[in-house]
């Protein structure tokens, strides 16, 4: 479910670093918590991101959620298909529904995030709290 070559944040974003480009999305846990996604707001190509700062929003029928940058860098590409089909975030959050690609990300910043096992332990803890 949570790919091993991705890194994860406590705010439920994922990032995959490949040939200097960081691809960023929201996790399956996040899409499930949000429910049916109906709108995504993304930054413009060229926008500068700061790790930990909001760069967009995902809206479901019920709620609005900020998306935080897992890493600093410059937006190189946005996933235009989400404008017409935001529900992709519900059906394929770790694949087709990537949000943005960022260049200039610092590899050590990516490496400092949770790996798949750590993230799964983190959300298991969250779920335990919720059902307590």
């Amino acid at each position, binding site marked *: 479910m949570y790919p091993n070559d991705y890194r994860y944040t406590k705010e439920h974003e994922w990032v995959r670093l490949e040939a200097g480009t960081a691809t960023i999305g929201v996790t399956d846990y996040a899409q499930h918590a949000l*429910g*049916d996604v*109906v*709108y995504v707001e993304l930054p413009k190509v060229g926008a500068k991101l700061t790790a930990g700062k909001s760069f967009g*929003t995902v*809206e*479901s*029928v*019920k709620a*609005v959620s900020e998306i935080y940058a897992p890493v600093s860098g410059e937006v190189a590409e946005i996933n235009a298909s989400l404008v017409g089909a935001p529900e992709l975030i*519900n059906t394929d959050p770790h694949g087709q529904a990537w949000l943005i690609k960022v260049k200039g990300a610092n590899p050590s910043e990516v490496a400092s995030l949770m790996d798949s096992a750590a993230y799964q332990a983190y959300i298991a803890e969250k779920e335990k709290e919720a059902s307590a």
Partner: protein
Amino acid sequence: MTAPTTTQLRKTALHSVHRRLGAKMVDFGGWDMPVEYTGIIREHLATRTAAGLFDVSHMGEIEVRGPHALELVQHVTSNNAANLRDRQAQYSGLMTPAGTFVDDLLVHRVSDTYYLLCVNASNQDKDFEYIREHNRFGAEVENAGPRYSQLALQGPKALGILQCFTRAPIAALKYYHFAFGEVDGVACMIARTGYTGEDGFELYFSPEHSEKLWNDLLEAGRGEGLLPCGLGARNTLRLESSMCLYGHEIDDTTTVWEAQLGWICKPNKGDFLGRDALLAQKQAGVKRLLVGFEMQDRLIARDGCAVCIGGRESGRVTSGSPAPFLKKNIGMAYGPVESSAAGTEIQIAIRGNEGRAKIVPTPFYRRAK
């Protein structure tokens, strides 16, 4: 005596069933309730096109009985309960002396000495105390919530599904009328009422039968497209139909006139709490009105967003959401009466952006008869 340090959420008799179905649960007015099972959009559309089953056992029931029952009901509510016949219901308001809402409710006349009031979950204790406090007539008042579970079966297929389980003449039941009868062997009050804008029924019965009724109805309706539905879809369905929600469109600062609910206010019925204040406000003219709006861009207005007309803040969004059946972003808000006509352009402050919206006639959605 020490006060409890944590609030224990109340649970309906179907709580473990919801958990088993994998529902997402939320605190709703102090109750741990299902917000969605398979997704708000799917559940909403199922109710519009087939049927939805909702556990609404959190709703409160207050019974008023005895030879003076009608006098008490008339005194605390705005609509005219004297117009009801046996087994007929009406939408009404529980009024403060200032003519604002303590709550909104359904008044069911079981007989001339027996009225069942269905009130909002989060208000039931407050309502009960309030009614009791104003009971100078000697009526019997009971906070009967724990004696009832309530299921809402709503949608165009609701009648067909329910018909398989009862001999009660429900097809002949008129809107806002009810019957007593067995459903699936369970003694029920079967009311043709709802909060979705669709045809449908609300069943009141003893909680120990909840699981049987829930499971049997779901099973029988599955082939017809019946889905279990949570409070998320219940909210979007009622909003598409422009029905008020207490704490949003109406509360103890708003009146029937402002909320466009003048039809539930009958000053000619005689004295009741808030009557003088309401007549005075009508005489003076209201300053604000509840209106419906449709977003003209892709932004979604949410509850609490500031509404501006001509650059001036004029009120707040009371409910705002995507409307899954209409596929538009809609909402309701209070605005100045002079700028409340359909077609008026308004701006809504949405997290730093200015959303463009237009006032439209309500209800947004009306089912084909």
